[in-house]
């Protein structure tokens, strides 16, 4: 049964990836002009014959289905075209930046999950207490402010006014640290962008954990655990929290696409050299192939992450069937 579920999810992931590529092909045709006009514009030379030869060279004069087929085949082989600005294959440029983004996002996700579960279970233990109310108020504020602005405010306080933390980049320029010193340096640089990214999700994790724990606490098996003579702490940790965590796994998957969007903005605020700052460079440089490549790569990563969380969910909660 479980294998069938996993196979079903795999097929679904493949379908999503195919749809992403089809959508990208459509998006290319949305931009005014085609690759030939852009290249001609860049070389500052554009007579009709030259344009025609460019179009022939890139297959732009062929029927749309042929172009689509070529595009799909190219993407399947990892060819996302060349970056106009960098003059390198798009995939290479993205892969070079990807580890930095993954590092930042993983840090943010871990902080958000750990902090949110902790705060949420505190709030659930004493509903309607001052602590509970402050979690609610804080999450309300976080939902209402632009995340990039929250980052800038954090920078203003901790870098400009207090001068505790570095405001920009992933490591100290020109310091050339190695080994542990370098890791420590990167960690210090990661605090501000990582926390900015984490806080938003931390607030939603806290709310979810709180709601799930209060709901689970009403169920019969919890009463049984209490009747068995377990302490309140044991009941909360082993019986309530463990069951309340199950929906959080799915939630992490659903939030992945929001995490990517937040990452783009937060990276830009803190000049974190990841895929997000690359997307900004692509926008300012009018580098359409690069921007589209970033969309394709992040979309594939997010759907893979969803696949992983779904499989994890089916293992944590054996009741899950195909769906």
């Amino acid at each position, binding site marked *: 049964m479980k294998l069938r579920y996993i196979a079903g999810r795999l097929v679904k992931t493949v379908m999503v990836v195919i749809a992403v590529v089809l959508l990208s092909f459509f998006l290319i045709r949305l931009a005014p002009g085609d690759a030939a006009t852009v290249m001609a514009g860049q070389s500052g030379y554009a007579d009709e014959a030259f344009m025609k030869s460019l179009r022939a060279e890139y297959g732009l004069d062929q029927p749309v289905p042929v172009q689509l087929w070529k595009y799909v085949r190219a993407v399947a082989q990892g060819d996302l075209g060349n970056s106009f600005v960098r003059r390198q294959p798009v995939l290479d440029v993205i892969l070079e930046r990807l580890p930095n983004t993954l590092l930042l996002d993983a840090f943010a996700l871990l902080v958000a999950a750990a902090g949110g579960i902790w705060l949420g279970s505190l709030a659930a233990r004493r509903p309607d207490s001052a602590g509970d109310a402050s979690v609610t108020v804080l999450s309300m504020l976080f939902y209402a402010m*632009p995340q990039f602005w929250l980052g800038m405010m954090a920078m203003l306080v901790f870098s400009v006014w207090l001068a505790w933390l570095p405001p920009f980049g992933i490591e100290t320029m020109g310091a050339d640290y190695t080994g542990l010193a370098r890791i420590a340096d990167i960690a210090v640089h990661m605090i501000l962008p990582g926390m900015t990214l984490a806080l938003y999700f931390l607030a939603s994790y806290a709310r979810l954990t709180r709601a799930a724990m209060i709901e689970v606490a009403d169920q019969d098996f919890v009463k049984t655990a209490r009747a068995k003579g377990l302490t309140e702490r044991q009941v909360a940790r082993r019986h309530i929290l463990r069951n309340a965590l199950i929906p959080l796994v799915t939630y992490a998957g659903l939030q992945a696409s929001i995490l*990517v969007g937040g990452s783009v903005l937060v990276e830009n605020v803190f000049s974190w050299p990841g895929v997000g700052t690359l997307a900004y460079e692509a926008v300012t440089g009018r580098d359409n192939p690069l*921007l589209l490549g970033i969309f394709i790569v992040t*979309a594939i990563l997010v759907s893979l992450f969803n696949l992983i969380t779904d499989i994890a969910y089916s293992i944590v909660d054996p009741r899950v069937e195909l769906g």
Partner: protein
Amino acid sequence: MGFVRRFLARPTTVVGLGVFLLIVAIALGAPLIFARGPFSIVGMPLLPPGAPGLLAGSDVLGRDMAVGLAYGARISLLVGITSTFGAVGIGVLFGAIAGYYGGVIDDLLMRVTEFFQIIPSFVLLMVLVAFLQPSLTSTVIGIALISWPQVARVVRGEFLSLRSREFVQAARVLGMRDMAIIFTQILPNALPPIVVVSSMMVGTAILTESALSFLGLGDPNLLSWGSMIGGSRSAMWVAWWTTVLPGLAVMITVLALNFIGDGLNDALNRRRRR
């Protein structure tokens, strides 16, 4: 309890409504109060709030921040409301057809909806706006195109539960066409949750617009709160107000809208009513 009393039961809703109406008034009145427009230079750059004639200080180029904030409200509200209408239009169409017909059509439409929920929507939005060329129109179209799935899900759920009710069967027996049943019989009954969802979406759309224009993907001919923040990044170190104030404006507006949404939810959502 009547609708109005349920709606205004929470003090936060009353505050939210008051603040929102004030912002609407500022947005509508901006061209009358500040006829010279947000781009005109009024004095030295980076004067602090409270400097003579400058309630909110001046920005990097010596433009009046207060004027920028007032004009920014126009963009935020315009984008927030129109893109939400767009998203509701697409979402209702998808959700209604999926929920009404069920079966294969439902499966297919829901796969499309899911697809748009899985993919990183902000990156897609950046691609859409950059490829269509940044403008007010492309911002609105882009935000509508990434936000409709939420509406579609809610509408589908409502249609699934309403389609087998007696009044729908009666309409069918009377020989009404499917489209007439969907839009004149079921949709009016499905409106309350749609209103609640869309009131929340306006705030989200305003946040998204601010993010887009912060990245320089807003309309280059218009000053919005996000572009004010983006344009003053280098000045933040010496002039906090250039970034703090526009961000506060976004936050207050979105907060007010969310409070209104909570109130609408209390007044309209039958399931959550106690």
